[in-house]
């Protein structure tokens, strides 16, 4: 698109911002014990406060409540939606994108806030607006725009009980041939992979070795000091001459955290990351797997190996010895 065309296109899409996606949608069923029980069974989330009325009455909740994560379920369309997709404002917005080549769509993330517990008998109504459209972004998928819809859920008294933000990327697929190669099914989106580490003059040699299954540690050839992360000049003697040694990946946990939020596509959560003190003396940040947060101890011995963690990423991964 020329700058003028882009401007005209952006005017068109920004005209959607703030618009209601459709009339408020009252749930087909009020909050009820049967649907709560089915949900709890299927999700394996059978807390007493969801399924055991007698128990729930004795808790601070004062009776059965719906699992907060069901919020969206109470006002969903149900199966007919699959055959006759709603021709709502959001669909019209996507049509504008499609007509300009932004045919790709990727749900990137969603976040929900809960203001109170829902109880059997509550009536949930969803009010959805097109909340924001980002600036044009260059993403790994291609050039595109992030669209956020904001759904506000109200109860029978018109009080807000929760909010949900849903964010999708509408993009011009970067390379349709690549997409075809990487997915075996016709329309199935490819599995998201981890963010590729940016590579430049001072670090690409390290990542190239990692791709080949080796973790290297930079060594000054003048004073023999090891250094990580790599840098072009030795901080000890200012030499720019260096080589590297291969790490044994024997080490211990120096510090760690387990990441829960935000959940970035391509990563598994909970996701534990440690600062690993390598036996060679340098430290390396990497994932620790096959162990719970509660079980990890600082000082614990770990052993690393370089593994393929997704379709295109090789990384060092540590496990307790």
């Amino acid at each position: 698109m020329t700058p003028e065309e882009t401007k005209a296109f952006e005017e068109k899409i920004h005209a959607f911002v703030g618009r209601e996606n459709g009339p408020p949608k009252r749930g087909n069923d009020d909050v009820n014990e049967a649907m709560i029980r089915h949900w709890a069974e299927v999700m394996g989330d059978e807390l007493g406060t969801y399924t055991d009325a007698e128990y729930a009455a004795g808790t601070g909740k004062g009776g059965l409540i719906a699992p907060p994560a069901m919020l969206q379920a109470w006002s969903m369309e149900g199966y007919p939606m699959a055959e006759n997709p709603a021709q709502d404002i959001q669909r019209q917005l996507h049509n504008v994108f499609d007509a300009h080549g932004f045919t790709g769509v990727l749900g990137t993330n969603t976040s929900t806030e809960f203001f109170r517990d829902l109880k059997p008998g509550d009536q949930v109504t969803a009010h959805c607006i097109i909340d924001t459209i980002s600036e044009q972004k260059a993403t790994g998928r291609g050039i595109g725009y992030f669209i956020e819809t904001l759904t506000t859920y109200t109860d029978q008294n018109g009080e807000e009980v929760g909010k949900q933000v849903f964010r999708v990327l509408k993009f011009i697929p970067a390379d349709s041939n690549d997409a075809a190669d990487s997915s075996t099914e016709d329309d199935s989106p490819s599995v998201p992979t981890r963010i590729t580490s940016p590579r430049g003059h001072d670090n690409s040699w390290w990542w190239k070795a990692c791709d080949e299954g080796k973790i290297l540690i930079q060594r000054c050839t003048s004073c023999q000091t090891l250094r990580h992360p790599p840098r072009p000049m030795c901080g000890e003697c200012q030499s720019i001459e260096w080589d590297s040694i291969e790490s044994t990946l024997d080490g211990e946990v120096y510090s760690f955290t387990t990441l829960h939020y935000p959940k970035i596509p391509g990563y598994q959560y909970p996701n534990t990351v440690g600062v690993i003190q390598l036996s060679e003396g340098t430290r390396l940040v990497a994932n620790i797997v096959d162990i719970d947060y509660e079980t990890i101890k600082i000082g614990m011995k770990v052993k690393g190996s370089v593994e393929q963690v997704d379709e295109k990423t090789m990384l060092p991964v540590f496990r307790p010895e």
Partner: protein
Amino acid sequence: MPVSLKNEAAIAGIGQTAYTKHSGVSELALTCEAVSNCIDDAGIDPAEIDGLVTYTLDSSDEVEVARSVGLGDLTMYAKINYGGGAAVGLIQQAAMAVATGAAKNVVVYRGMNGRSGQRMGRGVSGDIISSDLIHWSWYMAYGMLTPVSWVTLIANKYMHEYGATSEDLAVVAMTQRQHALNNPAAAGYGKPMTLDDYMNSRLISEPLRLFDCCQETDGACALLITSTERARELKQKPAVIRAVTQASTQGQEQMTSFYRDDLLSLPEMELAARRVYEMSGLGPDDIDAACLYDAFTPEVIMQLESFGFCGRGEAKDFIKDGNLTLGGRLPNNTHGGLLSEAYIHGVNNIAEGVRLIRGQSCNQPQGVEHVLISSGVGVPTGAMILGSS
């Protein structure tokens, strides 16, 4: 002959916008509103402003701000690096300009759609916020994408070594929320936080929870720095800059100083402490209140040790005694701070420091002579001591 910045300059104006989750206007619009309010607060002619300082991360160019708010000719403008680590660095630039004559009246500002626009808490994945891609390459593939993830690797080491717990972090969060209850501008206004609320907030980067993390805010805040002499002629009681410094130390990285010999302290903050105490001739005992940078609760705890309010590993006991509350030894972030007022990258904490000196805080302790204020933690940082005239 080197010039000491001690008492050379003062903060003579503060201005801010409403702090919201969705401003509906541009960052430039927010900034212009805050700068204009700041100039009105000081009672100075905008044409007299001849210097501007902001963050490298700020999107509002100096010339756009100058044109909009009717400033005069500019003779000094600068941008300071390292996110919230820039905060009091802005004041240092302004004070140096005032002390040397590079500019007479300098406005520093930060305006951001930090909630409705680019959110720090969303991480560096979709929207790269730093050009320093090689640096982030050591973390992104593992899922380390957010400020809280980087901070927790240092905080968790400290917590394990000294036995600090989630309950200790909760003290910081709850104390500042208590302060915000009296501040109508604050996100936490009218929203009390109990220990249960804290413990039930969701895990973000274990052991840190949502309530260990600062707000994400749309808003702007601006401050006017001029000579102490000139400040005395303006509308407000001057907050005199007793000492101000930036600080970065060996092994310093941007958020990821994981490779130092000792991860149990904040060497750059200790440098800042030595510098401001030496420049001002004051010590920890002279500090009556503080606005310690509080993007995440453990940062407050660790800084209490950096600034010598207690010994190493003792901060968890220091805070248990109520020392950060209004009646305590060191009332901290009396406006609610970044945790419970707003996240304007630390400039709003400096504004509260000025109000404390003026006697204008919504939670004004008695007899505040000196206030300590710090910049972002885990990055190249800085500190400042304000005093009354």
